């Protein structure tokens, strides 16, 4: 008996000294492709840092959004690293002190050694970095090259040209603009880009920060332009019945001509259409307004209650590295946040060039805006799309909501 206990003791000692340090990563990458890419990435990390063992807990995207709060608010943390979105959605937690500043990662290096300087503000709160970007993508007007060729259409550059393209498509029995608003964020894309083209980035940032009234006459102009498309019947009929992917099938089948959407539209395109898909920069409305685009950034944060912060820092340092970023971007055709990584294909190269030539970028309406405001705002956009005549009463109501939400 004593011998047995002794053996147990020795084994226990040996195990504790040999045991690898655990890093627990909670991830929303539940789709097959990103999930696989991330698992492979973690394998590479474990080979490079044999002292660590990484456990990935994957959750469905929508579940993750609600669960994250529980993890962050729990007195005893369980996750060391979590996936999330840059911008207001990250700041929401930073403001409450629920996530850790990541200064430690940049002790010997600078932010600019890894990432574009323009990303810094959207990953920071009160001048401290809280977020490590991994990949990002752009929004553009997607179309099928073969459909444009068939009707002799060239990529429009101005709003008038854009309306002409819509008219040509409509005359030929093709729905000019596809959209699916069952989940209302697709409409927020339109709101964002129209506001960026008409009122510019600074105004847009102030608006999404809750500093501009929603019934501001300048904002009304956005809806006047939007209304031109609605009144002329250029949008996909009954769009509120479709999810964004269902809206995209009209584009893929050639029944609709254009779709203002993020790069991830390629993820859902059938292989025979994928190479036929191309995009152009959203047309210019006011030539005096510089070009701004939407570029949501995805990445990681460390909860303030993480049990293994040291390990989490090591892991995020690896995530920031060229090697890790290159692998992930290549697997998914996205753009890596790391400046040293070149775009993985021609399509990504074109996207990158568009963004580099821009004067500034926004994240996205529901990433830049307080979550509650975003919910009422996006539903109001859908209401406007169905009842464009009610625009002023809709905006007055939004203004009331803004006052209530930001007065907290």
């Amino acid at each position, binding site marked *: 008996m004593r011998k047995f206990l002794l053996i147990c003791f020795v084994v226990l000692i040996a195990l504790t000294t040999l045991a690898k340090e655990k890093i627990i990563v909670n991830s929303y990458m539940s789709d097959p492709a990103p999930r696989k890419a991330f698992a492979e990435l973690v394998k590479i990390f474990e080979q490079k840092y044999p002292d660590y063992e990484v456990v990935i807990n994957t959750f469905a995207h929508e579940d993750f959004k*609600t669960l994250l709060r529980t993890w962050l*608010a729990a007195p005893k943390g369980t996750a060391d690293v979590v996936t999330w979105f840059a911008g207001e959605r990250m700041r929401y937690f930073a403001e409450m002190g629920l996530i850790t500043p990541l200064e430690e990662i940049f002790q010997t290096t600078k932010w600019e050694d890894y990432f574009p300087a323009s990303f810094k503000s959207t990953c920071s709160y009160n001048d401290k970095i809280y977020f490590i970007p991994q990949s990002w993508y752009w929004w553009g007007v997607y179309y099928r090259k073969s459909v444009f060729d068939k009707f002799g259409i060239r990529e429009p550059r101005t709003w008038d040209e854009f309306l002409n393209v819509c008219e040509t498509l409509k005359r030929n029995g093709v729905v000019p603009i596809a959209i699916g608003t*069952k989940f209302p964020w697709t409409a927020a894309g339109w709101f964002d880009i129209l506001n960026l083209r008409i009122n510019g980035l600074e105004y847009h940032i102030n608006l999404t920060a809750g500093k501009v009234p929603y019934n501001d006459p300048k904002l009304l102009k956005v809806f006047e332009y939007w209304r031109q498309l609605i009144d002329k019947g250029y949008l996909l009929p009954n769009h*509120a*019945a479709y999810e964004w992917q269902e809206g995209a099938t009209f584009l893929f089948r050639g029944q609709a001509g254009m779709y203002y959407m993020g790069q991830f539209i390629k993820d859902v395109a059938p292989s025979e259409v994928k190479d036929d898909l191309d995009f152009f920069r959203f047309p210019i409305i006011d030539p005096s307004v510089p070009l701004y685009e939407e570029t949501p950034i995805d990445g990681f944060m460390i909860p303030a209650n993480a049990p293994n912060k040291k390990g989490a820092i090591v892991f995020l340092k690896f995530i920031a590295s060229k090697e890790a970023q290159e692998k992930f971007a290549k697997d998914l055709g996205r753009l890596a946040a790391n400046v040293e990584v070149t775009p993985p294909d021609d399509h990504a190269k074109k996207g990158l060039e568009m963004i580099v030539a821009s004067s500034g970028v926004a994240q996205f309406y529901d990433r830049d805006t307080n*979550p*509650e405001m975003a*919910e009422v705002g996006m539903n*109001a956009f859908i209401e406007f799309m169905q009842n464009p005549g009610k625009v002023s009463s809709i905006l007055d109501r939004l203004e009331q909501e803004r006052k209530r939400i930001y007065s907290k």
Partner: protein
Amino acid sequence: MKRNKLTPYLFLAAPLCMYSIWVIYPIFQTFIVSFTKWDGMTKMKFVGLENFQRLITDNYFGLSLLNNIKWMVGFVLLSIPLGLIFAMLMDQKFPGHKIFKSLVYLPMALSFVVIGQIWSWVLEPTGGIVNTFFRSIGLEQLAKPWLSDPKIVTYSLIAAALWRQIPYVMILFLAGLKNVSRELVEAAIVDGAKATQRFWYVILPALRPAMVIAITVNIIDSLRAFDIVFVMTRGGPFYSSSVMANYMYVQAFHNYRMGYGASIAVVQFGITLGFIIMYLLNVLKKEERE
């Protein structure tokens, strides 16, 4: 003797304990949260009746409540008579009645999520079976955007829910019909009562207990409607098909307004409780009579 009195309570102890943890305690907690402003993370702030005052002026909550009433009316006025008709038909022993019964009963075997998904396809505006049918027989004007027109979307959802609710009511009545005494019906036949008279004066009064259960269950089901709405429209477009449970979910788990969400839950709880008490009183009265 004393021991015998104790036994039922011992058996009840375990379920009661679980019931307290999973049902009673959360109900009280919801009541407490409904008087606070809380985002689920930082400290709760007591705000008294502010959430309830806000509910009164919240158009979308009013709309959700109105939609719940539409659900209730639809459930009671449609599923009860239709369920009863089906039950009367199924009670006859015509050839193939078993297959017919299984077919009507089939939707009961599906979960609301599956039903919601199926009906989303059935009501799809371009290629859905309903609109395709209307177009094929030349009734283009009847091919409607069932799930995206704010004026009709709630009725479309109720129709989908009825698909499952009617067979459920049918089962309740079928069970009730088993309790209608044969002798009574035969006596009525001997007395020369016609089929309609037999139905109105013999069978229907005997179905009273089943009727009370069916109405109560339908009202409660209509008040807790959530799954179909969540799957088919998420309350959209712009809250037009929202119901209380759905609006509560959006406020609490999407907008991080736990206190406001809880106050919606409290209102819903109060309304439901009213109907449950009415039902229980009815059952108790009946038990006393027996």
